[in-house]
Structures are given as C-alpha cells and as structure tokens.
C-alpha cells in the first residue's frame, strides 16, 4: 500500500469552522446559513485551501471570518469586483461571494450586474433581509414601498428590487432563491450553484430578528407557507397549495403566466413545466414576477441554470492562444524584442 492509496481524510463541517467568536445577534438567520454552508462545504470535494470567500460590508459580510478557508472581508459593495480579479487570476480556486441586499443591490449594484453578465466563476450568496442591519435599521433596496424605518418615518418611497428579476435581467446563467430556515432546500440549491460553471446568484431570504423580524413568516408558517410559496423543480409542472390546487399556465394569446386556482386532473396537462435549462430567460423572468408585495406566490428553487462560457475560462483561453500563435513570452529574448519594437537604430562605440 502506498501513500496514494490511503484514503484522503474526509473533511467535516467542523473543519470549516474557525476559532472566531461568531458575532451575530442571537436568533439571526445568518447562523442557520453559516451552519448550512459549513455542513455543505465538505460535499464540494474541494480542499479548504482552494476555497476563497470574499464579502463586502454588512452583517452577512462577517461570514468569511467564520469559515476556515481563505477569505477577504472587503469594502462595501465591491466584493464581486474583487472576487472577479481573484477568480480570473486563479482559475484553480472555488470563489464564493457573501453579500447582503444593501451591499449587493445598493452600493454594489453596478459590480453585481457586471459580474453576472460576464459570467465570472463566482458563487454569489445574497442574504436578503429587506433591511439595513449593520447601520441599524434603515430601509434597503429590497424593502417594500411604504416601509416605516428610522430613515423613512412616513414610509419608504423607493420601489424595491426583486433580486431574482434583476439577476435574470443581467442574463445571469444561474439564479435561485432559498430560505435561511429551510436547511434541506438551502443545501440543495447550494449544491446546484456549486455544480454550475460560471456565475451563480443565490438569493437567501434571511430573517433580521432585530430590525425586520418576521419579514418572511408567511413563507415559513405552516398555516400559510403552502399558499404563499412555490417550490420550483426542474421537469415538474409548477403547482402549489396544500393539495397542489394552484398552478401556472402560459396564456397562448399573450404569453403571460396565468394562475389557475382549481387545478384538476383534467386541466393539469396544461400546466407550465419548469425548465431551468431554457435558453430564453423570459419564462424564468415571468416566474420571478409572480410574487407580489405581500410575498404571495413566491417561487423558491432554481429559476435558471444554463451553459454559457465562463469569463475566466475565456480569459485563460486568450492567454493560451496568444502564447501559441505569437510564441510564449517569459524569456529574456522575448522581452528584449518586445521593448525594442520595430524601429531601432544603433550608435556605434
């Protein structure tokens, strides 16, 4: 038996914990997400040292300190830009971005959409609690209109972003939504995101029990969750409600998605079948628009998962192609001929 035959020590959730004291408010949804990510990371099959987690600023962005991988807690909104540089320079790494609704969609909105349209190999986990937590309770870009906060005593006038719609609008190749408290679903979505080549945006509804407690209760409460939440599954007709009595059909005339509230065995055949691999993002976008301000008809799961060349791989291809067609740099001769350019003259001794 050689060393190579020895089984690689299998990592566990414990291996991804650091000795840092976790400093989120007791009861914060971030704990559940951290536990799920730590529990899921060993499944990735990637060595700890090859994982890098980059975050911006906000409660969620403390995340890298609690993960025993390489990490960077950076500056407000800029994590996707910084992570882009890292992912492009280091194709061998698995790069994750942890961000919040204020971080990703307000100050960092520009970087987010550009990382998504480029399809950089980043797994972006957007913790959405619809409030500014770290700055103590102002409305965020996902807060509902009319939200009363410290900075909006008469109600917020800003129309909110729907992060899933935004990501699909930026033509992200992977977009999903999940919930902090549903560990099984969260883990399954993380797994799908990790398997995706290119940018993956995962919106995670996360409860801020200090400034916006219960924002997602209708999606968690056993009394209402089946009525409000729609679990999307690839290849399955889109149905929800306790008995699957609600469903979606596509209006043949307008192309809109219509809700059917009395799905029966007879009309079930007309229901829209969810296709995450549809190249055209318009149905996925329409699904993201089903939701209303009360969170009624909130789809969960993977909205879109399509193949498109990833940015870093394209960059690497160009570097390789240049070396193949023009000859590799890296030698003194190559450098000397570069700096000499075409037109030189020589002065004799």
């Amino acid at each position, binding site marked *: 038996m050689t060393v190579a035959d020895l089984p690689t020590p299998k990592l566990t959730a414990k291996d991804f914990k650091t000795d840092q004291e976790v400093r989120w408010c007791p009861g914060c949804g971030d704990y559940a997400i951290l536990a799920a990510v730590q529990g899921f990371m060993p499944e990735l099959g990637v060595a700890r040292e090859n994982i890098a987690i980059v975050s911006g600023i906000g409660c969620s962005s403390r995340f890298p300190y609690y993960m025993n991988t390489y*990490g960077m807690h950076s*500056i407000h909104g800029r994590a996707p830009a910084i992570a882009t540089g890292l992912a492009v320079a280091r194709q061998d790494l698995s790069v994750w971005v942890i961000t919040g609704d204020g971080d990703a969609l307000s100050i960092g909105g520009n970087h987010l959409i550009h990382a998504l349209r480029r399809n950089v190999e980043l797994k972006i986990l957007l913790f959405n609690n619809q409030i500014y937590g770290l700055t103590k309770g102002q409305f965020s870009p996902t807060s509902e209109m009319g939200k009363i906060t410290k900075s909006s005593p008469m109600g917020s006038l800003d129309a909110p972003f729907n992060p899933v719609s935004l990501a699909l609008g930026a033509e992200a190749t992977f977009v999903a939504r999940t919930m902090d408290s549903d560990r099984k679903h969260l883990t399954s979505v993380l797994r799908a995101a990790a398997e995706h080549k290119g940018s993956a945006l995962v919106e995670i509804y996360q409860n801020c029990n200090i400034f916006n407690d219960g924002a997602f209760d209708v999606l968690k409460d056993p009394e209402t969750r089946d009525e409000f939440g729609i679990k999307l599954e690839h290849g399955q007709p889109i149905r929800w409600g306790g008995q699957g009595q609600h469903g979606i059909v596509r209006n043949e005339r307008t192309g809109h998605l219509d809700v059917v509230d009395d799905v029966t065995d007879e009309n079930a055949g007309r229901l829209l079948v969810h296709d995450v691999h549809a190249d055209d993002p318009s149905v996925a976008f329409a699904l993201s628009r089903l939701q209303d301000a009360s969170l009624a008809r909130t789809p969960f799961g993977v909205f879109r998962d399509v193949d498109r060349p990833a940015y870093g791989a394209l960059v690497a291809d160009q570097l390789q192609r240049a070396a193949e067609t023009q000859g590799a740099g890296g030698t003194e001769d*190559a450098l000397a001929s570069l700096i000499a350019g075409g037109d030189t003259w020589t002065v004799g001794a």
Partner: protein
Amino acid sequence: MAKQVQQLERVVIRFAGDSGDGMQLTGDRFTAETASFGNDLSTLPNFPAEIRAPAGTLPGVSSFQLHFADRDIMTPGDAPDVLVAMNPAALKANLKDLPKGALVIVNTDEFTKRNLAKVGWDANPLEDDTLDGWNVRRIPLTSLTVKAVEGLSITKKEAERAKNMYALGLLSWLYNRPTEGTVTFLERKFGRKPEILEANVAAFRAGHAYGETTEDFAVSYEVKPAPMPAGTYRNITGNLALAYGLVAAAQRSGLPLFLGAYPITPASDILHELSKHKRFGVTTFQAEDEIAGVGAALGASFGGALGVTTTSGPGVVLKGETIGLAVMQELPLVIVDVQRGGPSTGLPTKTEQADLLLAMFGRNGESPVAVVAPRSPSDCFDAAIEACRIALQFRTPVFLLSDGYLANGSEPWHLPDVATLPDLHVEFATEPNREDGAFWPYLRDPETLARPWAVPGTPGLEHRLGGIEKADGSGEISYDPANHDLMVRTRQAKIDGIARFIEPLEVDDPGRESGEGARVLVLGWGSTYGPIGAAVRRARREGHKVAQAHLRHLNPFPANTAEVLKGYDRVLVPEMNLGQLSLLLRAKYLVDVTPYNQVRGLPFRAVELAEVITGLVEEVEKADANEGALR
C-alpha cells in the same frame, strides 16, 4: 543648381492644424524620421479633448511640437522656430508662441473668408501687416496636394486629406530627413487601400519635390546626429515605456501581471498596449468602473498576481477606498496615475502634477503608501519597475505618478539589457510561522516590516484579511486601542523604512568637489526634470553656479534629503501645481524652500525657469554683498 545646405544645432518645429488634419500623425512621422537620423529629440503633442471640435475653430486646433538637436536636449523647446499652420485657426492659436523671425508656413487655400470669420479675423492676415516680422511662406498646400494626386480614382475629399503628407514631405526636404521610413509606414498603414496609399505617397513625394524646386526655399537645413552613448535606441512615449516596464517587472518577479483598469485620458494607452501582450501572461480587465478596476487588481494580488491599476486623477479619487483596503491588508498593488489638469474633469488632455498630495493623503485614516515618479518618457520604464519592486518587497500599494506630458511626449531611449534588470523575485509563504503550527499573516520581516504573502491554494495557511483593524501578528480583528496605535505606527514605519532600500538623492553640483559649490539648489520631481535641467544648463552657461536634484521617490523621501536641503542657502522647487512638494518638504524638514509654480496645462518653458533661477542666484549674491557691507 543644388541648393545650399545650412548647418543648425537645433530646431523646434510645430505642426498645427484642425483636429481632422492629421497633425499628430504628421508629427509622429517627422519624429520617427528624426529619430532614425540619430538626432536627440523631445516632443510635445497638444490636442483638444473633443474627438472632433468644430472644424476650423480655435478649440479644434491640434498641434505637435518637436525639438531635435545635434546634442543632448531635455525639452520639446520653449518656442517654435518653425510653425506649419494648416488653417487660420492654427495660425491664430499659435502665433503668440512664435518669436519674431520664425519661419511660418501657411496653407493659403484655407484662408477663406468663412474660415477667417470662424476665428474672428475680419481681414486676411496674409494680406495685411499681421505677420510683419515673421518669415512667412504662403503655400497653397491643399490645391498642390490635389494636383499631385490627379488621375487617381479617389474623391476630392480624400485627395485633400493627403495635404498633411504634402506638408510632411516639404518639411522632410527642408530639414534633410530620411524619407524611406515614412513610405514604409504608409505602405503598412494603407496597404489594404491601394488608391489611398498611392495618394499619400504621391503627396509626400510632391511636397518633398516642391521644396527642391520652388524658389520659396533657397536653403535647406541639416541638424547633425547627436553624439550618444553606443547602443541600440528607439523613440518611445511615456505610456509605452510604462507599459513595457510593467511587463518587464512581471517577468522579473515571475508573477503574472493583472491590470484592472477603466479607460481615462491620458492613461488609456497603457491599457491598450498591455492588452496586446497576452503572450507574456498579461491579463487586462476592462472593468465597469474605476472602483472595479482597482478592486479586481487587488483581488488578483490576493491571489498572487502582480496587481496593477492605471488611471488618471479623477479615477484615483474613486479608487481611494480600495487603496485604503490594500494598505490595511498589506498587499502589493501598483496604482499608476497619469496626472492631468484638474480639479474634477479639469483639462483631460493637458498635463499637470497636482495629484501628489492626493497620492500621499487622499484616503481616510492614517493610510501611508509609497510614491514614485518618472522624470522623462523613457524613464517611465525604470520607474514602473521600481514601483513594482517596492510594492512586492514591502507588500504595499505604490503610486506611480506619471503625467500627460510624459504619457504622450517622446524621446530616444537607450534600450536596456533586459538581463540586468533588477530581480524582483518574491517568496510566498509556504509554511506555518508559529511554533504551534499556526500561520500568522501579520508576523513581519524585521528588516522590511513586510508581512508574509500567503496565497490561496497553500495548505495550512488559510487566513482571512479585511479592512477592519488587525491584531498585531495574528491579524485577527482587533478594537484594542493600544493595538490600533501600534498598527498605525507600524504601517507608517514600514513605509518610512523603505528609505533604507532606495538610492540616495543625487545632486548635480559641478563645483561641489572643489569647494566651489552652488548656493542655490533646484529640486524637482516628475516630468519637470527636462525643463529644469535645460534651465539649469542655461543658467550655468551664463556663469551662474546652481545645483540640481530630482526626486524619484516622493514617499518616503531618500534618507539624505534633509542633508541635501540643508546644504544650500536657497532651494527652488518648481512644480506644475501650487506648491505640493514645497509643502511636504517644509513640513517634514522644517526648512524653507522657494516654490515656483505654474498650472497652465503645459510643461514649464526652460527660458522662464532659467530667469527664475538666475534671479534667485543673484538675490543670494546680493544678500552676501549687503551682509559684507554691514560687517
């Protein structure tokens, strides 16, 4: 009968025309001909920020000035000896710079009523006494060009566009420049459009022949090659040299170069140039904004690349927060600031050196960085390597302060032997650095105070960086007051300590050795080196004793700076700002200096600087005399 050839030591030519007239191309070609002939030279392109300002108007004037000589020169020249004016606007905009007696070649075809009115001339200056005292040659360049390309199947407009080549041909004859290079160049440029190529070559040759045959020019001139040290030379602009310096630094460090940048004048050419060199492992990332440009560069540095961002002043302002993060994380990062006129959008295509204090202090908190500045176009190569050396060795952001004058100006460059470029090899951390097997990312090298650079992918060294204050050594988050005080001082000490790893400030003071040294020192930084050097020479030629020193390192200053400053009665500090270096010197060394400041979007004129220097020297001597009288 062969025409007479008269020898000259040096000539300053300015080509001026409308933005669409191809004056930059004409100037570039004349420069290339001059360079291949072996003259020393220095150029100053000057163009509007608009892509095409309204044709024929004063804001639309584009010019290119070239100074060439049979000796070592340092500036593009104070005032042109020759002005080529392609239209009334070009004449009007440049006449004020032109000393009486200078040769003025005007394209008479463009002096129409309409064009004259555009620049507010009621009468034609070619027909009244406006140009009295200048040596004017009235030549219908456009119609001569059209005639020269007759028979070619091109439009009239295309024919007229070749008039810049006609002018170039004429000037090439007048100054006995070699012409083969221009023909080869045109073949390369217009190879795919044979008719256009033919027209340009015909116009160029016709211009040359016109000089030979016309009675307008009885004499042509020759400026002999300049004696230069043996070796291979090329002509180079600052932006190009800077780009090459970055490629060379990456190669000498063994690290891939990662440029994160957003287009901005006058820095964009560095992005363009580096984009061509992927075979050298150079990745260029054209980011969505300035912030993403520097962010991606920092991310790449975290991953073990040589992270660089190139920009100009307004971009630096946007990058400030990320540079602060790099200061806190103590990662290598090179920030190239090709300075331009400010504030705000300012004068995008004009030069200035007013970002020194921005580079020094333009971040929140105590946030020290190293600052390096090139002194000439070709020096941008060495300065870029030096900036990378400091960034890599000390794990710090480094500012490289070029400017618009260096960026676009050119000069001959004695090509370096690449084998002798400095070794910038970096040792990444590979092992835990604590006895208990832990890795502390902020345990420092006692010599340099640099922290270990452990890159992702290294087993056992997993760690987290961030912008929140670090505990000394372990790098954990720390709000401990004493720790913050220690870390602020340590980061400062690290930058200050770089002074022990840089060359001392060298003073050029010819009389010093024999005890006959100067009492006035002229101290500069950056692109003012040329004008200061030329001015110092002038002053010395007039018999004045004056010393010159030029700072490459602005932060930290070289270790002997105080000693140098205190060695002179007066220190003159010329800058293209309102006294930023003066402020730093006074604050740091508690010695007075004499600022001399101009912020005109143009380099200093050596003649003016020489007057200031001479005045100061005389003042010192007069003070001596008074003191003697009192005794």
